[in-house]
């Protein structure tokens, strides 16, 4: 059936976006070809909208209207503001790799001293004509949608991190995305490759410098975890309250590998974190915890596809949301168990705390199970703060706001407990406390 849809202005992605950015996008030859193809695909699809199942709760056509033009390369003043934002993050002891408006900023980044770690920028690799497989960096094999194509077409920079086999890194690697622009977009793409038996902690954060507003962040992160390797992953989205953050993450786990990931989202008017996690080797474990702390009219969407393509792997997903005002949290979780992936153990759970009558939490669990000897399940709860607990605390002298804050902290704290690193856990607590303080 051929259906010709009449496109409104908002539905027409602008070819102008790509044409005007072209001269600033690294990579000629095969890289440029991949970009062109990707942009053609994006143009054909347009921004995702509610009629596309995977985006039904997060209609980017309605929410974003259009993709903002590529942000200018940061000038000296922008870098100064970005530096202040990095300092204000309030976490120490991490190896910072800083991207400002989508461009790697060596002057704000730490020198890599560990021998077992190699860092390159996406730009330098894409521009290196002697690397025959450089264009592959822009390809995503596990999924395809308009936003993945847009990122491939427009990615200006990012970091490529390679960790040697059996390395035990002394510091977390911290990819910091700082926005300084107003009304512009940053497109980044990073890759982290963890060797067999290596132990790595990776932090990703998204923050706004002073003056940054109504910007859009389009990020893509591709992580591969080697056999018997372990990744502790922490992601914090604290973008400006009128910004947008659309990120695709791809994780692949080898055999007997471990991934423990925690995400905290409290910023951005619209945020979408879509994760595609594939078990490629047997005996691996995934534990993922997420918290959305939202207020105003903000929307936070987490969409995870966990693909058990091999037997004997375990996945645990727990997503929490604390929703104030008219905010909206979305969790779509799909667990796929392939025909031969016997003895799979996959569970997901969502818990939403609704602090206002107008807040909304949507959960869409999906189980696609083709094997017959598996344990899979999902569950969801949603509700207001428990009146009985609130009264108990108030009867002990806590004013209403303090009683609420204590219960919210406890609710969020259970998820934060999953962070292994003490320093990072304290940081996550402090970040959540700031949200609570701003609330009341």
């Amino acid at each position: 059936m051929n259906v010709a849809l009449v496109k409104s202005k908002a539905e027409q992605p602008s070819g102008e976006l790509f044409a005007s950015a072209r001269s600033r996008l690294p990579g000629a030859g095969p890289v440029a070809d991949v970009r062109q193809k990707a942009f053609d695909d994006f143009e054909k699809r347009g921004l995702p909208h509610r009629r596309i199942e995977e985006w039904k709760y997060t209609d980017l056509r309605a929410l974003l209207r259009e993709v903002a033009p590529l942000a200018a390369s940061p000038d000296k003043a922008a870098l100064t503001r970005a530096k202040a934002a990095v300092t204000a993050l309030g976490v120490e002891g991490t190896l910072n790799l800083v991207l400002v408006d989508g461009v790697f900023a060596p002057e704000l980044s730490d020198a890599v001293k560990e021998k077992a770690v190699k860092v390159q920028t996406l730009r330098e690799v894409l521009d290196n004509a002697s690397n025959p497989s450089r264009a592959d960096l822009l390809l995503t094999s596990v999924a395809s949608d308009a936003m993945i194509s847009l990122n491939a077409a427009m990615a200006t920079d990012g970091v490529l991190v390679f960790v040697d086999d059996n390395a035990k890194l002394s510091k977390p690697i911290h990819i910091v995305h700082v926005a300084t622009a107003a009304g512009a977009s940053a497109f980044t793409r990073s890759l982290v490759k963890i060797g067999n038996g290596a132990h790595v902690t990776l932090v990703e954060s998204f923050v706004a410098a002073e003056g940054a507003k109504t910007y859009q962040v389009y990020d893509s992160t591709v992580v591969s975890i080697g056999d018997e390797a372990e990744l502790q992953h922490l992601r914090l989205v604290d973008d400006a309250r009128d910004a947008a953050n659309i990120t695709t993450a791809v994780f692949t786990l080898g055999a007997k590998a471990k991934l423990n990931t925690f995400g905290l989202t409290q910023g951005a008017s619209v945020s979408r974190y879509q994760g595609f996690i594939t078990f490629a080797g047997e005996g691996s474990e995934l534990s993922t915890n997420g918290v959305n702390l939202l207020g105003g009219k903000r929307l936070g969407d987490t969409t995870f596809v966990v693909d058990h393509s091999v037997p004997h792997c375990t996945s645990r997903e727990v997503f929490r949301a604390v929703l104030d005002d008219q905010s909206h949290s979305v969790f779509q979780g799909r667990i796929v168990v392939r025909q031969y992936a016997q003895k799979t153990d996959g569970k997901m759970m969502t818990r939403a705390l609704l602090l206002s009558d107008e807040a909304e939490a949507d959960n869409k669990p999906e189980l696609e199970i083709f094997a017959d000897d598996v344990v899979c399940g999902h569950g969801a709860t949603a509700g207001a703060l428990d009146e009985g607990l609130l009264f108990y605390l108030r009867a002990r002298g806590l004013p209403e706001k303090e009683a609420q804050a204590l219960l919210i902290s406890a609710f969020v704290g259970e998820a934060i407990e999953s962070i292994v690193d003490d320093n990072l856990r304290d940081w996550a607590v402090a970040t959540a406390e700031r949200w609570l303080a701003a609330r009341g």
Partner: protein
Amino acid sequence: MSALLEVKGLKVQVEDNEILHGLDLTVNEGEIHAIMGPNGSGKSTLSHVIAGKPGYEVTGGEILFKGEDLLEMEPDERAAKGVFLAFQYPVEIPGVATMTFLRTALNAQRKARGESEFSTPDFLKKVKEVSARLSIPQDMLRRGVNVGFSGGEKKRNEVLQMALFEPSLCILDEMDSGLDIDALRIAADGVNALRSKGRSMVVITHYQRLLNYIIPDVVHVMSKGRVVKTGGKDLALELEKSGYAQFEDKAA
């Protein structure tokens, strides 16, 4: 002796159902009052309304505490003024460590009274002292509030809070429910240690048993939303023999 708590003609309803039909009760400073009565007589409603639990509508009468209108105050203000309700069923609060809870609550009360916050060493010392007296092990204090506590431990935790917050009015709502005799004795000993000239208590119970351990000055019998008889501690013994039926008839 001046009145600490004065309940006058209190009428309370839940939804459209009137539970208290004009209740009068005066508790003087330093007195221990027991309120006895059958199920559904309104004993717990009275304790909830004094503490400020939402969901009750006061349609008549007043409650004065140290001469002030208690019904005008939020539950946390009442706590800061010295009203303490020991819950019949203390709630479990996962994720909030008992120590954190105790300190937050104590400091919130002190702040509301314009007093300085307790220093950490002083606070720890005090908690240690009181918890030892109540046989509360230290590891219980590190756990979530009441999480995984036995019935007896929960009640001891209530008494611990009473000892820390030093309220002038303690309302013990069915403190004996769910406790075996040993647990009851420990909790009651904790309560007795807190008896003082400046502190009044209202002990709500079904059974006379508790009053063997916490000896009241005054005993009230409640039936169908009213106090139908008031007497000395012997009244409790009399009730144990003759039951509540006589009063139910009277109230009807």
